[in-house]
């Protein structure tokens, strides 16, 4: 299969990957870089379990063609904790607020929330709900997830 070589920034590191041209960013992250935090919940951009941040925007990495990643900056859930393993405020708030149950949607949920807070540090509940509306969760009913994001937004953690 025809391969493509791409250079991009991944969680702050400059990386190169040579993968089949048909691969998605999700597949590249999971198979090539063994970063399995982003999950495939549907593979067609509906559930949001694969959400990562590309150049500041939350994207469904399952739909993102790998050639498009050239020169861009990708942040995954593995790249947001502090260097000494201190959790990102969102990660901490998710645990403390029971915003995690089965956890399958969590990586994507946190990345969507992070993309929002990076742009808008004090969003209204409506903004949070809109930003997370592409991330499905079957366990929590979203309530404690939204509360967790609000707690970070208000800088309470």
């Amino acid at each position, binding site marked *: 299969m025809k391969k493509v070589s791409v250079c991009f920034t991944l969680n702050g590191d400059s990386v190169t990957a040579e993968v089949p041209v048909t691969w998605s960013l999700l597949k590249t992250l*999971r198979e090539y870089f063994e*970063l*399995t*935090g*982003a*999950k*495939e*919940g*549907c*593979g*067609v951009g*509906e*559930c949001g*379990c694969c959400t990562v941040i590309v150049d500041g925007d939350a994207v469904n990495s399952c739909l993102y063609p790998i050639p498009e990643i050239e020169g861009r900056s990708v942040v*995954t*859930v*593995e790249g947001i*904790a502090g260097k000494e393993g201190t*959790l990102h405020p*969102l*990660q*901490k708030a*998710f*645990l*403390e*607020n*029971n915003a*995690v*149950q*089965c*956890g*399958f*949607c*969590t*990586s994507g949920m*946190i990345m969507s929330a992070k993309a929002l807070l990076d742009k808008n540090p004090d969003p209204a509940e409506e903004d*949070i*709900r*809109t930003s*997370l*509306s*592409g*991330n*499905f*969760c*079957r*366990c*929590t*009913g*979203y*309530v*404690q*997830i*939204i509360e967790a994001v609000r707690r970070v937004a208000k800088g309470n953690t």
Partner: protein
Amino acid sequence: MSDYLYVGKDIPRTIEADKVCGRAIYINDLKRPGMLHGKILYSRYAHARIKRIDTSKAKKLQGVRAVLTGYDLPDVRVGFIKDQTVLKKDVVRQFRDEVAAVAAISLEIAEEALHLIDVDYEELPAVFDPREAMKEGAPLVHEVDARGKPVRSNILPLPWKFQAGDPEKGRRESAYVVKDDVRTTWVNQGCMGTSGCIAEFDMNKNLTLYSQTNVPFLGKQRIQEYLSRLGLGKSNVRVLNPVVGGSFGTKLDTDIYEFIAIQLALQTGKPVKILFTREEEFFALPPRQPALFNIEQGCDREGNLTFREVKAILDNGAYTSWGATTPSVMMMPISSLYRVPNVRFDATCVYTNNIYAQAMRGYGNPQATFAVETSMDRLAEEAGIDPAELRLINCNRPGEETPMRLKITTCPLEACIKTVREKIRWGEKRGKRNGRGVGMASLIHVAGGARVYKSDGHGIIVKVDQNGRVDVLESGTDQGQGSPTVISQMVAEALGFKPDDVSITLGDTSLCLWDAGTHASRHTFMAGNAAIQACRSIKRQILEMAVEFIPQIVTYAIKKKKQKDPNFREPDLDWKLVASPEAMDIKDRYIFPQKAPDHPYFRTEVSEILTRGLHVGTGQSRVVIAEAFYDPPTEMLDREMKGNYSMTYAFGTTAVEVEVDKETGEIKIVQVFAAHDVGRAMNPTLVKGQIYGAAYTGAGYGLTEEIQVRNGRVMNANFRDYKMLTAKDVIPVEPIIIEVPDESGPFGAKGIGEPGLVPTAPAIANAVYDAVGVRISDLPITPEKILSALRKKDVC
């Protein structure tokens, strides 16, 4: 208030920190060296004869390691009543019938190989409506039963017949009677993690199955049985649970794909992984059992229920899984929600060529409670009694035995009804018919195990190392409910250690003891009771060591002090304070005399004692370990389908306010109050999480969710067309935790995993009626159905 240190506290789920860092290993993430990828070819028809299967092209494809069809496998039947084989040969009976399977070195090659398998079918007449399927002359889904005997009907040999009291007499004595037809539909469990497993044999044909099952031991038993039918009776089976991306009923049965992975692994001698796509998750997994109810009930002039009679028809689909047993749970609300002396319930399960169904959160309870609670509202109207009042008149009470012989222990149902009635301002809002309305519904559910199997037992092993780290080998599984956190709280409380000291190992059939499974909202209840027993023994062992070692430690410390300071005066110690295990206790890792908790010499950190116990140096060293097996004194249902199958029952009431747009039929949920009897909340934040999640899924059940099955085919096998509620669909749920500690529960706890889902849909239906005066008895309550009902009403 209790003086518990950890139980009842909002301990955060830090034990699951891997999940927020993307490090938790789900089946999707798991790889084994040399692993192959398996894919399944499904039927192209709802009912057809297989004339020919040609796998030769697929077998020749580079990278393909095995291609199997039903003709390659021994005729071993699997399933609840053994009515199917792993791969189907001769006849397919539904679109999800597994016709062939491939193992290849990559997923892409496996997928390509499926396209190269050529199957010739001859279509057969099919039947999709269970009422049609019951009729004489309907096409038979199965021509023979599991024993090979010819069958004449599509009706399953699983009659559910229940009667208590005299329903005819009850009907005669009724002042008011209502009758209704109610329909509930197929609903997908919607786990975010799709289904999958890895099967791996060693050279001695011992199998390790990485399975998402929530019944590891029953799963092991089924697989062990299957292997022995293949002539591998000596193989050991080890079932291991990875982190599971949701279950909600899907992991109750050992699914066909698991047997297929096993067959492919046997064939190839390599580990084989099968991982479902979302589409497969929708069409090739058994969804919630649909049901058609005919419900009739009555009351006297004062509103006392006189009788309730329910007939149910269950579309079993082409094969039998746990869906066919949902009547055992439907029976609970039908016989025991509110006090009703005369009850009859008949359920008929019918084979059709539709997808077969099984359980989902709440089992058959949401279906039956939808029928009972919408009928209660109808009866209230007929009798001219406020619906909340009618429920209060017939409210279950502590200490009563229901017609099904359920023994009600604690029962704050009255408090639940009154609380939500007040919260939603029932009196002020009800009966306006101005597009805004309120409705309520209650529930009863098992909350202290459920004796479905002869053993409803649960085993636990607790061990403590010399540093005071506690390992709990616990037979249940965690599909997201937070069991590791709650169990660590209960263990810490029972031992006198800290939750941080406790590590939990779940779902490993080789390490853990038997458990009937993490279903029926039973995990906290069972694990807690088992943990309390085991921890009692552990505590005793530690205190016995303390009796031995505290004097040594203290004497040595005094000797040291004397050496350092010749003027040191030896204290006059009362050694009786530490002379027996009974005289001491442990709290927060400190051993202390009960009579002098802060004793300056005797108060000792546990690891000091544990370390001495392990390193004695005389051949007398010991480890601290205990196991416990808790099997509650409950009953299986008897021939009359009666029996107290749970130690305790949970109650709850949900009140909903809706706004219905008469022009568009759209429903807006304005507020939801969900009051739940939880015994004692082990972790209130986690309890609320269960209620929020269940209420949300319940709202989806009420409003949007339906697997569209047309002539046996699932038409909406994706999230675009199957409407699950999202963060944008605001359902403002306020959970209300009602605590009346139950004697049989660990620290007073009852199960709370499923209840939140049960009353939500009927409460919505009742609120819609209050808002616009139309009753929708057919789930989901869509805008189209409301508009059509409104139109009909206008015409009348």
